[in-house]
């Protein structure tokens, strides 16, 4: 069984493409398209790593990230944020809220796979500071 990743992304074709390449790379992939119920999906699936889009229907990815970091069960859950190119404000906010890394759209499949591998290994990227274990 591969590392379990939850993709929270409302663009169905991005979800399908990323799911495809990550599955081929050996990941156990779960997709979720609604921000409002993303925390439920995290609780139900207990992923090893989460890929979280910033702009989601129902609830912003940044709000979801904030809640993940405020809950003891998910405080250290690795999170890779997807932001849009040019949105430095979103990137800065995501990192300050405790995202482990971010990717800007449009990204390549190679970038996605490599970054996600690093995030799952606990490598801090893009200047992000990993939350301390147990804090």
């Amino acid at each position, binding site marked *: 069984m591969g590392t379990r990743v939850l993709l929270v992304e409302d663009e169905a074709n991005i979800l*399908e493409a990323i799911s495809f390449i990550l599955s081929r790379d050996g990941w156990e992939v779960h997709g979720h398209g609604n921000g409002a119920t993303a925390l439920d999906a995290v609780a139900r699936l207990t992923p090893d790593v989460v890929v979280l889009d910033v702009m989601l229907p129902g609830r912003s990815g940044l709000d979801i990230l904030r809640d993940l970091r405020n809950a003891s069960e998910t405080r250290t859950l690795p999170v890779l944020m997807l932001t849009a190119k040019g949105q430095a404000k979103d990137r800065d906010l995501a990192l300050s809220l405790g995202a482990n890394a971010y990717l800007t*759209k*449009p990204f390549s499949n190679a970038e996605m796979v490599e970054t996600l591998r690093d995030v799952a290994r606990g490598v801090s990227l893009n200047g992000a500071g990993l939350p301390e274990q147990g804090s």
Partner: protein
Amino acid sequence: MTQRSAPQRRHALTGSRIRERRTVMGIRQSDLARAVGISASYLNLIEHNRRRIGGKLLVDLARELEVEPTALSEGADASLFDALQGAAGESPPAFGPAPETGRIDELAGRFPGWAGLIASQHKRIAGLEGLVDGLHDRLAHDPVLAEAMHELLSTVAAIRSTADILVREPDIEPQWRGRFHRNLHEEAERLSARATAMLSHFESQGGRQGAPSTPQETVEAFFDAMDHHFPMIEEAGPGTIGAILVGVAGMEDPATRTLAERLLRNYAEDAARLPLKPFLAAALDSGFEPEPLLPMAGGDVALVLRRLASLPRSKGAPPFGLAVCDAAGALIFRRRIGAFSIPRFGAGCPLWPLYRALSKPMVPEASLLDLPNGTTFSAWSICQPAHAAGFGAEPVMRATMLLRPVEEKRAGSGGQPVGPGCAVCPREDCTARRMDSLVG
């Protein structure tokens, strides 16, 4: 192993191209060899890329094969090759082998459709990324645009990921391949729609959530809502202007109201000089052609153009567009019409007769304009004084252009190619271009 550069690798395939071309032309190897003065066995070595050639022999072979020498040495389409090489070099592969850049010629030759698609996607992505960079500052301050940009980039991300899979995954199952083709098509359609929506947003600068925000925009929205026709003024003159503006949104703003009153007074002056009933009757008789109507207006061409643009559609008038600019080329009034985009801010296409008229005051011009979207418009234009000037006074000049869509272009009419303005015009090779287009 010594790595060869891309040009070296391309030259290395010269023999393959010679063989391919010879085969297509149905020439025997021995006949071609004889024609260029070499032995058939030597040509055979060349065709299998085991002998490098150049100079006179390459020129002789190209002549016999009726192609340019570079088509043999460089391949059929250097720009396609460069685009594919650029796409391959854009990013490292997700997994598996790197793109076989040494076999780009083979890819372009064997799968020209896929090669073209990859090249066009690469070009499109590069263009969109450039657009994104250029809009960076504005993004930080415009939430509507930020959301539109996020949607657009999500679409680009979907296209990029999907295309990446189709190009780099040779063993993809047929059902997945079909699915990704369909996704690619869906996203291309979405990209088109989202890009169009974004450009509309640029057009309505400041018009967030569709609400006009400047006096000019508010008054224009009011004129559009009235279809640029005011029956009360036509019947009872300028004394009705106050009543017309009662309850109109935005008129509580003094600047907006002043502008609306001024434009309606201008309308009333025009209506007084060319009353609706006889003018409409004459226009119907003339087929709404301006020229036969000029005597009614004492030769005032701009007046006829403005009045035609204010005729009610309900009485049989065709759709008209109107643009009026001052001597600086700044647009001061417009009536929009369908596919002919007249930007509110910034300049339109420098090839429009509206601007040409500025250099030829008092010379009316009728022309046929072909837009890049395939539509054709009749245009009538004139530059003349806005008001009568006294002795020794410089007249204030204004150019007016009336537009009318042509249902079916008349055979052999040869419309002049124009655009909607450089920013959104796809005519890349236009000599009048002053800036790069934002659309690919």
